[in-house]
């Protein structure tokens, strides 16, 4: 066991090196954005900033933190993520569990499954969807960002596949003890598939965090935009043709790269911390370990 062969050592060396390079490649753009956000405007627009700040300054962070809209939007996003992930996870569990049963255990199971899968392929387009959200009275409320997309079908499929991988015996013993489907779902399936649940939760959180289009379309005033919708309005360049000198001067202000970089950076900071937190649920062998115990 203690003996590690040379070829194994070589493999590990290559493996570590490659993964480190890959990780760095993924990390550098964020470092670049951070560096730009801490540089002076002149250095940033002249393209002098690579991975280290030039003419170090906090001014862009002062600007952002003094901007009420940024903080308001951050709060909207936090609310949205908490409410949305809670509802989504509940619905996902409730749909994935029955669908993980065999057709003889649940009538119409395959039909149900196709009904859900079908929605990922076909859509009526933006306008009818908007009208539906409007007619169900959700426009301009937090619910509009939460309810219409409350069932991410991809996550359902992922989770039902994990459920299916769990040994049947465990559930049967639960039934023997007089438990029903509900007990089995809460007491057996949910706790036994923690890594899968963590994955799906992460996807749901990230989905809510990143989606910006619904916020712009369904909210009636900028104070209700989630952060990503707000960032979209900051980052996307307005048409620069036909401006007056005053507008141009004002645009010069808002098109400041360092301000944008600072907002992008603070805007992604909270979500970057979510994954490391969820990682502790990715423990190998948790499933059978607990079954055996």
């Amino acid at each position, binding site marked *: 066991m203690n003996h590690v062969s040379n070829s194994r050592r070589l493999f590990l060396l290559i493996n570590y090196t490659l993964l480190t390079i890959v990780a760095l490649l993924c990390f550098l753009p964020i470092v670049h954005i951070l560096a730009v956000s801490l540089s002076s405007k002149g250095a940033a*627009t*002249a393209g002098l900033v690579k991975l280290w700040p030039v003419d170090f300054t906090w001014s862009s962070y002062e600007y952002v933190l003094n901007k009420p809209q940024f903080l308001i939007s951050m709060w909207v996003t936090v609310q949205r993520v908490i409410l949305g992930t809670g509802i989504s996870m509940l619905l996902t569990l409730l749909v994935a569990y029955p669908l993980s049963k065999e057709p003889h255990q649940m009538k119409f199971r395959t*039909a149900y499954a196709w009904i859900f899968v*079908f929605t990922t392929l076909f859509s009526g387009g933006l306008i009818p969807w*908007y009208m539906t959200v409007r007619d169900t009275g959700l426009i301009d409320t937090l619910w509009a960002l939460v309810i219409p997309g409350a069932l991410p079908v991809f996550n359902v499929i992922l989770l039902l596949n994990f459920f299916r991988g769990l040994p049947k015996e465990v559930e049967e013993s639960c039934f023997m003890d007089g438990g029903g489907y509900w007990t089995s779902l809460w007491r057996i399936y949910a706790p036994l598939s923690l890594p899968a649940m963590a994955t799906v939760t992460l996807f749901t959180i990230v989905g809510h965090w990143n989606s910006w289009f619904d916020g712009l379309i369904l909210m009636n005033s900028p104070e209700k935009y989630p952060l990503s919708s*707000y960032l979209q309005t900051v980052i996307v*360049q*307005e048409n620069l043709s036909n401006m*007056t000198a*005053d507008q141009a001067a004002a645009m010069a202000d808002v098109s400041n790269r360092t301000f944008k970089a600072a907002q992008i950076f603070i805007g992604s900071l909270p979500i970057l911390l979510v994954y490391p937190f969820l990682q502790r649920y990715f423990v190998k062998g948790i499933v059978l370990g607990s079954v055996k115990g």
Partner: protein
Amino acid sequence: MRSKKMAYVSLVGCMLFTMLLSACGGGNEGAETKSEEPEQIIEGPVEPMGAFEPAISIDAIRYVGEEVKFPEGQDIKNNVWTDLYTELGMNLNYKWIVTGKEQYDSKVNIAIASNDLPDILEVNATQLRQLADAGQLADLTAAFENYASDDLKKVMNIDPNALPSATFDGKLLAMPSTQPVIGGSAPLLWVRADWMEKLNLDPPSTIEDVIKIAEAFATQDPDGNGVDDTYGFALNKDVGTSGFSIGFMNGYGAYPQIWVDKGDGELVYGSIQPEMKTALASLQEMYKNKLIDPEFGVKDTIKVFETITSNKIGLLSGPSWYPAWPFWDMVKEDSSIDWVSYPIPSQEGGNASVQMPFSVSHYYVVTKGFEHPEAIIKMANLYYEKLYSDNAEFEKYGTVTTDKDSIGVNKYSLVEVVNPNKDLIRQEELETALETKSDEGISSAETKIMYEEFVRYLDGSNPAGWSGYKASGPDGSMKQLRILNDEGKVISNGFVGAPTETMGQRKATLDTMEQEVFTKIIIGESSVDAFDKFVEDWKKLGGDSITQEVNEWKQSK
């Protein structure tokens, strides 16, 4: 077994579908019934700025630019302009507000498609046509006639195409938002004066001279850093649609993307004229000689600005406001940098005619059924009255100056109508005022403020006045445009209004082809003769019918 289940699924699907069909059918009946146009009853004398008694409530939507700021205690729903509207009995009620024009356009499209319109809204030409065709708009003919102030009527008639572009079957269906497009878009040649001086170059008098300056800037290390890192002439990826290339092409008498009168009253498409071939050949030559950034094809305007501010480019064509951005960013940091503008020279020498877009790019409309269409006219009256008339209160409604900064509060007005020649008039008045050292001849408060800034700039106490002075000073870019305009050398698109039918179907494809062919010619991937093939294809793929439609449109006017 499985096929049975699939059949079941499709059955469920079908049932759902029929359910939906019947339900939606019912829901849409209401859309067909048309409300009757309320009669225009005018009681007593009409006051353009009179208050509504009793007050009316107006549903509206709007966008706020990301750059718009507010003084302490004001926001977009409560500010000097909304107060003014309230005083006059107009209570604005915003159904929604969005940040940014682009987002606004897509939200309006959704509002139109889902039949969710407020009483008053701003639309673009395509949206206007669509609403007009659907009969959703209130007729503003009588309201404009009766309520528009003399000032407003005058402004509306400066561009003879403005009102006609909003008139359908003899009815005025929208208030055009006229804008000062000469100052906003018409191209000039901008050159780094410090570089010219350093390399002992003369101002250009022909477009050939421009190329010579470009050559000198590219090869003779004008920034003196000992590295061959400068380019001669700026270009971005939007060949033929952005000012960088338009100005240069105008120098050759080529007018990309607009319809020009060939002299016999017939409109032809500028991008397919032989002059364009010459211009492209010249750009190809410049690219080959490394006068143009080899990466121009992927760079947008902002990226090109960055190349400029990092001292890599000192020659470009662009609008009069470039001193405000991006040039001021450089001059502020290093006062040895100086920019100077020239009118675009032509091939034979003398000034070339330059192009600008139509002065109206958006409109204000009132939806059918709203009882007071004159409200929109009154708002337009107010805008002009409070900002540009003899009774203007510019310090209150135009620009508010606090100790921290100055804030353009005029942006809060729902309606914006500007004299298309505003920039020209302003420059003329400023020039006279500087000569006579008195602001007596200045007609607007806005210009008076600017005059004071100029005076302080000239005595050295206001270095930030540089950009304004470069544009509107006695030798500024606006002066050059004013001369050009007086000579009739600023031409506008001969076709204005919503896209014609074939344009709607084909323009995107034709534009794609145009940009692709032009870019490939410039980078030398295609020979200049590819232009002839492009012209042929353009005509065949819908261009001929578009030309016909455009000329029919012209006849019908």
